[in-house]
């Protein structure tokens, strides 16, 4: 029981990170109908920028405490967002309205570029960072087993909830959000109604990248080691999460992220660590076969 509770806590905090990345996938998919394959690498870039800013701000001794972390987060979001914007501008916008596979190949190319760019710029070696947020609470004790809710897990959960709250407000209550939803429904109609669709799509990528930056920062703080390759697996799993939740659905992405996090954690805890990714992917395949639109996706009626 205590063991399961601990896994639940671990799973939720991991799932929140997946959820944050998944939102970026689902937003882009909703608005331009493409798999932004480079999004996982944007997350990786976010983690690297967070690493550099932490070394600069905290280890450099400029600031300490929660304020410093907030500053790191702000730097990270700003610079990662710029990467998101550039990727869309360079690799996707020229292909808008083109054939379906062209943007996908372009995205895969971009993903390769970003990985190797970071490998060249920051080196191929794994970067270890000493823990920045330590300590935690003891929730319960069962025999020798102590259920821990660590501060970093609290930080992950709180930050994710806060970011998602801001994001939800942005999408539902602001003119930008309205424009985004309009583009999602019917891009041509939206542009006829005077919505600058290029700008809206750009902003979608900027927001998606900012959320990935938050995920990257939290991932770095939680796990402490990153390399240029972390984006691929995280990206695939986050996309899995987006599909699981029903692609195009924002709450679905978060839900899917949580589920993938939980499945992975529980599978590792009770069965085998080696096959945790197999578990996540198998769940994906099963969901799609039996529930083709995901958990919260819209049913698409086939028009004939």
């Amino acid at each position, binding site marked *: 029981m205590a063991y399961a509770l601990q896994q639940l806590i671990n799973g939720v905090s991991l799932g929140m990170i997946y959820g944050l990345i998944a939102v970026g996938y689902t937003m882009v998919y909703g608005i331009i109908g493409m798999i932004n394959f480079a999004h996982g690498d944007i997350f990786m870039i976010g983690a690297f920028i967070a690493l*550099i800013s932490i070394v600069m701000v905290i280890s450099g001794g400029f600031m300490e405490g929660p304020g410093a972390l907030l500053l790191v987060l702000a730097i990270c979001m700003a610079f990662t967002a710029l990467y998101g914007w550039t990727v869309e501008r360079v690799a996707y916008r020229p292909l808008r309205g083109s054939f379906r596979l*062209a*943007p996908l190949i372009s995205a895969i190319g971009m993903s390769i570029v970003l990985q190797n760019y970071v490998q060249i710029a920051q080196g191929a070696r794994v970067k270890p960072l000493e823990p920045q947020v330590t300590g935690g609470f003891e929730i319960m004790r069962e025999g020798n087993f102590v259920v821990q809710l660590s501060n970093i897990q609290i930080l992950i959960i709180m930050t994710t909830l806060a970011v998602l709250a801001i994001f939800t407000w942005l999408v539902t209550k602001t003119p930008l959000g309205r424009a985004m939803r309009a583009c999602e429904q019917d891009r041509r109609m939206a542009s006829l109604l005077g919505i600058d669709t290029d700008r809206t799509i750009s902003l979608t990528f900027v927001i998606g990248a900012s959320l990935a930056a938050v995920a990257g920062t939290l991932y770095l703080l939680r796990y402490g080691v990153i390399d240029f390759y972390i984006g691929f697996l995280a990206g695939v799993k986050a996309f899995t999460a987006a599909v699981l939740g029903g692609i195009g659905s924002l709450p679905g992405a978060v839900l899917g992220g949580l589920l993938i996090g939980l499945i992975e954690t529980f599978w590792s805890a009770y069965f085998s660590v080696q096959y945790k990714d197999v578990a996540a992917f198998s769940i994906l395949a099963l969901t799609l076969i039996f529930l083709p639109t995901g958990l919260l996706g819209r049913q698409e009626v086939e028009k004939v």
Partner: protein
Amino acid sequence: MIARLGGAIRDAALATLVAFGLFVVMVGLRTDVAPGGELFLRQRWADVALLCALVFAGRLLVSLWGLRPHSLGQSPGRAALTAKLGTFFAPALLAFALVLPFVPGIGRYELDLGILVLTYVMLGWGLNIVVGLAGLLDLGYVAFYAVGAYSYALLAENFGFSFWICLPLAGILAAFWGILLGFPVLRLRGDYLAIVTLAFGEIIRIVLLNWTELTNGPNGMTGIPRPTFFGLPFSMSGEPDTFAGFFGLEPSPIHRVIFLYYLILVLALLTNWVTIRIRRQPIGRAWEALREDEIACRALGINVTATKLTAFALGAMFGGFAGAFFATRQGFISPESFTFIESAIILAIVVLGGMGSQIGVAVAAIVMIGGFELFRDLEEWRMLVFGAAMVVIMVLRPRGLVGSRTPSIALGERRAVSAAHVSEGKG
């Protein structure tokens, strides 16, 4: 002109500003691990300045040159021209491939490169059946390549079967896996299919990695039997029952390389022959019809699932053949050879070549793999160049090198169908 120059400079300045934002942190500040284990930053402002200058110059040139992507495929006239060129180009290319080992100055290195390129040509042609003809987006094609390679290795090592028995078995096993994996997922729509195939590719790799008793895990399988010339081994001993001894040749390691070269050439040509023939058969036409409009296919009585499965299984089978060849050529395989990036490269070859075009795929494989090899001195930079090339080619030619389609049958003269009409499927 002045206004244009002014606009271009302003554009370039903006691009430089963005570039500065991109590079200032990632390039300007490099994290390194100190001997004590903690991280420190190294500053590299000169590199940032250099990159910004490059971006400025590059952007300026692009806007002055007016380098713009093609809006929509090709005009019919150009499509016809490409097709005409293709009729001469393809036999020339084939003739070149046939005589390559005997061209003076072609050594072992060039032949090895030729073998590598041909392997990708074959994989590209195999995947072309699935993606180019049937319009099914498969991001896990490497799984079948892996199944073929491991089937060969396991059958040869555990049962001592020869290459010529293992090759068809590897293909059949891969096709079987194609059907097994394809059956539940082929009714999924486009991107869902893509992600599930990707997931299957990863699952197979992870299983190969962790099922140590069978596959020896990450260490891979060594000592895979090398191919024999229909029973005659390639050996340096010069005994009468070796290839060199039997034909009275001076024993040389190049014999095996030449043999492997022709082996993969024949396998690739087999793939090509089967594809070209099937495209003119009802089943091949049904694949293309499926790519064009699945609902209309159903209304015409075509069993969509069975049709998709044949495409999937056939593509997988050729992947399996290629895998068996890969295993016998390397003599060593490990899960590392079957990562997602391989699938991405093969898919890129198909799309860059022009979906459905056999010659386009061959040219794309030569350009991508040959080009990749050209940059081998650049080490880690070459992957960067490779990825960038994918983006640039897509932006400039979204329909690939050969976007037009040749009809499978005609009453009169066969005329190429311009890319603007050909769809690429949603499945």
